[in-house]
């Protein structure tokens, strides 16, 4: 669930639907009653009120509870549209073509597809991202953090009440080689503003015993990954912690519900490090239910490239998301040169 910084292909983005790029964007003045701004991207319109985010498009409309919308929008922004499709719910979402993005209503919903009412437009990724960032900034009130678990933050409801730019502007952690190496992503500590989470108070904070010979201090290196994760201040937001070429270990701490149904464009592996997550999987293209996967500490499973998945974690848990960041994979899968499931037996 984490993007490599160099994932965007230098080649022209794939455009399997042959859609033209939209270029019309607008930010409306703040509404007199609610205080929130409205936004336009292509033919899509976005408006929020006290409880809901409202989305419109020619001949269609949809609404989501605003907490659901903000948590999903936050991940789409933080992850740079991510790998494949980010379904905010069963109707609205985005699909990343790495440089360009499709935004859709109903494109991954069987009823919309059958009735021919799905609506899709295509945008340059950086232009749509600019609007999304303005939206998450304007629609997030003081005291509400869309990255946080519901029990750890305030409520998003009501009319415009300040902002929380520090929370929505967090930078995703992306180690270049390994957390803790000189010049790489630093360890977390109380002093650096990362206290141990209330649900991980029992996680040992000891560090490995490292005995480096003189001259090798920069390479004889280790750190406590579990302690590092116990101090994560966000949920469902993988950070790159170790890198072998395009193999990215992206562990994260999870509590409550993955805010999106993620329809990856490549197989995605989950390694459950502690506690338990229940995954629901659905058909990537239609949303039809396919399976329930219960992962306990030590369990490993893959999400095939043709499903969308959503996780549920009651007790905050540690999950290692393992990604292959190669930009070649989506086209290999689309062209049938790579399987949806990485191993058959």
């Amino acid at each position, binding site marked *: 669930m984490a993007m490599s910084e160099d994932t965007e292909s230098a080649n022209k983005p794939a455009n399997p639907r042959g859609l033209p790029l939209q270029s019309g964007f607008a930010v409306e003045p703040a509404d007199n009653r609610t205080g929130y701004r409205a936004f336009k991207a292509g033919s899509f319109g976005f408006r929020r009120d006290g409880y809901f985010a409202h989305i419109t498009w020619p001949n269609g409309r949809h609404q989501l509870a605003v907490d659901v919308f903000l948590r999903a929008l936050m991940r789409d922004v933080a992850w740079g549209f991510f790998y494949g499709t980010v379904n905010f719910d069963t109707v609205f979402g985005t699909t990343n073509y790495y440089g360009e993005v499709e935004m859709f209503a109903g494109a991954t919903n069987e009823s919309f597809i059958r009735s021919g009412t799905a609506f899709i437009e295509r945008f340059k990724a950086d232009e749509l991202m600019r609007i999304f960032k303005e939206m998450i900034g304007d629609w997030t009130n003081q005291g509400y953090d869309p990255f946080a678990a519901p029990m750890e933050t305030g409520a998003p409801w009501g009319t415009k009440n300040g902002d929380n730019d520090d929370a929505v502007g967090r930078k995703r952690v992306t180690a270049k080689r390994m*957390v803790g*190496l000189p010049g790489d992503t630093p360890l977390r500590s109380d002093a650096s503003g990362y206290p141990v989470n*209330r*649900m*991980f*108070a*029992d*996680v*040992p904070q*000891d*560090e*490995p*015993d*490292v*005995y*480096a*010979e003189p001259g*090798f201090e920069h*390479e*004889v290196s*280790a*750190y406590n*990954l*579990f*302690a590092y994760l116990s101090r994560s201040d966000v949920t469902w937001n993988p950070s790159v912690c170790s*890198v*072998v070429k*395009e*193999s990215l270990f992206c562990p994260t701490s999870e509590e409550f519900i993955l805010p999106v149904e993620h329809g990856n464009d*490549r197989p995605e592996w989950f*390694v*459950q*490090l*502690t*506690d338990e997550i229940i995954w629901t*999987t659905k058909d990537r293209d239609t949303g039809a*239910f*396919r*399976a*329930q*996967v*219960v*992962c*306990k*500490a*030590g*369990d*490993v*499973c*893959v999400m*095939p490239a043709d499903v969308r998945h959503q996780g549920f974690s009651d*007790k905050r848990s540690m999950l290692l998301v*393992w*990604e292959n960041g*190669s930009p070649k*994979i989506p086209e290999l899968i689309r062209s049938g040169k*790579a399987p949806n*499931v*990485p191993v058959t*037996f």
Partner: protein
Amino acid sequence: MSEYSTQFGAIDAYERGGVSVIADSPKNYLFSNMFDVAARSQPYVRVAVAKNFEYVIEVARAEGTSGWFTCAHDEFVTCLDYSCEVHLVKLDDPDSVVDPESEGAHALAELPPGRKMGRIVLRRGHMALLPVGAAYRFEAASPATLMIQTIDGPVTAHKWAEFCQS
């Protein structure tokens, strides 16, 4: 005292979840458990539990002293339950030991010339760099579970049917 208790697993104490299908095959999820793999493996057999094109995650049962390994790229090892020690040696001429274009770990019949880099004692949740150009071996007084981020190579064992839910 916290009201929450974090559930870890260990080679001698683990509980598996599983896949319940609605309209699918459990084999599509390649579901296994790392502690189960380690518990039922011989020491230092590096079993692939996850594979994504050329990349793999291997699980090994640490017990006693391993042979020496080396690799033409970085690898990372995480100890998942008990203690394991990693010994590192900087090879004088790593390209003569393994092809620098090769992928995955290679087992060495003997330790080539090099200089001691140091050692690391890992416990539950600790991750260590196994740097390119080094040889390394593991030591564990009692069984422990190792997870290794690497590339499919000559020592990677593929036993999917043995460990995955079908």
